[in-house]
């Protein structure tokens, strides 16, 4: 950690300045425009039927998704981190698989797998009733968000190096279940709260899934309402409504962030494989298989349905090999697609690099002075992408409209928090003595930072970079509102094709998009897969 306070001050000034430009000014401009017509009009607009319905829909689906995803993620985390399930490695990887698939592709896949005339309909005559509508949105977003909850809770379980707490409970007479109820869960409360907040923010921010599953059924959420008002409507009243809703979303985000300070829980690297005790012996295999089956059903099957749809010659034909063709893929790989791919990759590279640099800057700014800075950065993440896009558009649309740069600004505003938190967490866990030893051996502040801190942080840095890269690759919510002629990202192109209504071409493009994202995420997957418990039984050397 650079200890010289002048360096820290410079870093703080730079970070604060950038935060003001990237997040502060857009939000200010947004409020300015929203309040232009006076508070009365603002309240009137918010109370209007369309806004009210959309806000209510977002809130209740968001809450349901948060509850369900955290419950499922916690159960999965307890199973993989606190019991002796066979094949844990594979289960962990499988639980994280949904992160590779952009959510709106998941929605599309589910519609093709479980919707009317979908795979299960053709094979078994079964469909998921209500796939188009709030039920479908809740189910699909729960599947998409569960890995997030799982990561947070599993991280908390794994980073507590003392499994002795649960053993002490067992040794004091508690059954497995009582220990879970009286000890494990209460201690997990901060992680559970954090997971709830993160998933809620994620669900409120979702655009692709409600667009694919909600709009056809007339179910509007804040994000689809904003998109409708901003991108699909020429009515000036719609624009007012859009800015008003965006401004109110910022307020909601501030409230949520402010009331739950720990938005992220530090993820410990140490994992222990110590079981809390014998038990669950006979049913272990069954549980593992059940978990695997659930993963297959919710993640693998929709992908299979997607691939089958992409291979089918024409809509309405059975997806049997007789009707298979690669024409859809050939048609999908046109100049537009490749252009979108290029744009997406450029943006993702830039976003990941810039975000990480900014994150480092914010960390270098020091802990004490950075309360406001940290809040501003977290706000960028918590504010739903739709609102953020509107804000950025209002602030910089004049100069940067229709360029890749404006999309980049929105990406950076949104993902800065990811880089910052990841780095801050890792830096906090650095033993300060190492840096002091380096200084005492003659290294200058910057040199000490570079030769001691950076190598120790390298895995964290790489992980954070990759996470932002993958997220930016399949970002849709903001890109769909900010792109201009010839500047569409890949996700936007796929969404536009989907909206035009040809399922086979859409499926082909969606499969290609998943392929691109998966390729990018392979290094992450390998890193996560490789980490394994290293401690011996007994809780330590003895």
């Amino acid at each position: 950690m650079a200890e010289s306070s002048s360096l820290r001050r410079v870093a703080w000034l730079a970070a604060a300045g950038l935060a003001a430009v990237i997040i502060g000014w857009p939000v200010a401009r947004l409020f300015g425009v929203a309040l232009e017509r006076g508070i009365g009009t603002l309240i009137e607009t918010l109370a209007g039927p369309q806004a009210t319905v959309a806000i209510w829909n977002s809130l209740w689906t968001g809450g349901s998704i948060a509850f369900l995803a955290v419950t499922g993620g916690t159960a999965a985390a307890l199973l993989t981190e606190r019991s002796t399930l066979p094949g844990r490695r594979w289960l962990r990887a499988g639980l994280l698989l949904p992160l590779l698939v952009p959510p709106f592709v998941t929605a599309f896949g589910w519609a093709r797998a479980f919707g009317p005339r979908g795979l299960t309909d053709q094979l078994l005559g079964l469909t998921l009733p209500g796939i188009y509508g709030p039920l479908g949105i809740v189910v699909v977003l729960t599947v998409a968000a569960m890995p997030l909850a799982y990561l947070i809770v599993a991280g908390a379980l794994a980073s507590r190096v003392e499994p002795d707490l649960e053993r002490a409970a067992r040794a004091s007479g508690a059954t497995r279940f009582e220990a879970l109820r009286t000890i494990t869960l209460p201690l997990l409360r901060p992680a559970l709260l954090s997971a709830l907040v993160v998933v809620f923010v994620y669900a409120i921010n979702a655009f692709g899934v409600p667009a694919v599953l909600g709009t056809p059924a007339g179910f509007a959420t804040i994000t689809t309402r904003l998109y409708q008002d901003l991108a699909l409507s020429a009515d000036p009243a719609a624009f007012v409504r859009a800015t008003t809703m965006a401004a109110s979303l910022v307020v909601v985000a501030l409230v949520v962030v402010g009331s739950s300070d720990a938005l992220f829980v530090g993820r410990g690297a140490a994992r222990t494989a110590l079981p809390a005790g014998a038990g669950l012996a006979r049913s272990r295999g069954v549980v593992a298989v059940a978990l695997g089956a659930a993963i297959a059903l919710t993640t693998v099957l929709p992908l299979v349905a997607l691939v089958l749809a992409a291979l089918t010659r024409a809509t309405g034909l059975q997806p049997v090999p007789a009707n298979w063709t690669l024409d859809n893929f050939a048609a999908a790989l046109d100049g537009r697609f490749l252009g979108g791919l290029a744009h997406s990759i450029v943006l993702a590279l830039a976003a990941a690099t810039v975000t990480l640099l900014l994150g480092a800057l914010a960390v270098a700014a020091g802990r004490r002075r950075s309360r406001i800075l940290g809040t501003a950065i977290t706000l960028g993440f918590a504010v739903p992408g739709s609102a953020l896009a509107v804000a950025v558009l209002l602030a910089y649309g004049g100069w940067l409209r229709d360029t890749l740069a404006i999309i980049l600004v929105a990406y950076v505003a949104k993902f800065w928090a990811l880089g910052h938190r990841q780095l801050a967490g890792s830096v906090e866990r650095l033993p300060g003595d190492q840096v002091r030893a380096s200084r005492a051996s003659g290294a200058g502040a910057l040199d000490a930072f570079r030769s001691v801190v950076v190598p120790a942080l390298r895995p964290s840095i790489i992980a954070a970079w990759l996470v932002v890269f993958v997220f930016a690759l399949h970002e849709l919510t903001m890109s769909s509102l900010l792109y201009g002629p010839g500047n569409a990202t890949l996700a936007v192109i796929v969404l536009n094709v989907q909206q035009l209504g040809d399922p086979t071409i859409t499926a082909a493009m969606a499969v290609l998009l998943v392929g691109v994202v998966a390729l990018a995420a392979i290094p992450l997957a390998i890193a996560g897969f490789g980490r394994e418990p290293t401690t011996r039984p007994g809780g330590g050397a003895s």
Partner: protein
Amino acid sequence: MTGRPDPTVGGRPDPAVSCRGLTIAYGPTAVVSDLDLEVGRGEMLALLGPSGCGKTTILSALAGFLPVASGEIRIGGRVVADARRQLAPERRDVGVVFQGYALWPHLDALDTVAYPYRRRGIGTAEARRRAAAILELLGIAGLAARRPAELSGGEQQRVGLGRALAREASVYLFDEPTAHLDANLRDRLQLEIAEHRRRSGAAAIYATHDTAEALAIADRVALLRAGHLVQEGTPADVYERPVDLWAARLTGLASIVELTLPADVDPGSRSGSPGPTPAGVAGADQAPLLSTGRPIAAGLVRAIVRPDWVRLGGAIPGRVVTVAFRGAHTDYRLATPAGTIDLRAGGPPTAALGEPVGWSLDRVWVPVEAIGGD
């Protein structure tokens, strides 16, 4: 299997704990192999050994945290674990005190100690009353409302002890409970633990790497090396009659002295002449008490000498190499023709570094396993 035994089944009381052929494995490697161990009722057994020797592993298996690969564990005469079945920890008649205290951050001291009572179905108010009594017994009644974060190490461990006592078990397992405490506190807490244990009448197994601790509080001591039992006996047994050099070094300072034996000797103790003389030393008025664990032939033999079996002021020449004043006594290291000798004498130093001194030998012990070179 409730785990609460009737100890008088069959007339002879069952041992509190008994392990037969116990093997515990982690994956393909066996951490503990074919161990036989027994703890009588009301007896405190110390498991003594260096880090990694398997003591915590054994305790974990006894408590039910680790499965048994083969062999069996009985507590109070009832089988609680074997290769086929393991009784769940909460149903075994054991209480555990952990090395890292393992206190629950969200419960205060009173509720922590009340926890075992609550798990037995006792109501909150009654459980708290009993817990308060235990806190009183341990002298920490004033800490009842404090959370672990507000307690010092020693206070935390006392709460841990109270929690184990609340279990009212017939066997207690102590996993190096004083390892993280300051030296002064360690001595005091060891004795407190021993006292409360004795008063409760329960048996106990106490894992430690601290020899002084083991010798001080245990009724019997078991020496463990890489998962194997090397020696088992009373503290005096393992101190005065270690089976080999490793055991000798584990249980205290041990010097090796080469002796010339005039005649064959059978196991046992001999004194008087003709006795062994330190090799390379002239003078026949050395006739230390010879104890041996194995038959030895006349000639050269290596023996173990404890620091308190050597005395300053004697005919054998030597030179002081190190001096360390320990307060109640002084430790010397002497370079002598018979080898390097560690010596402990009462009081402040009477010889300085480098000074030539004379010394004499009171006793020697020839271990069961020959010392290398014999």
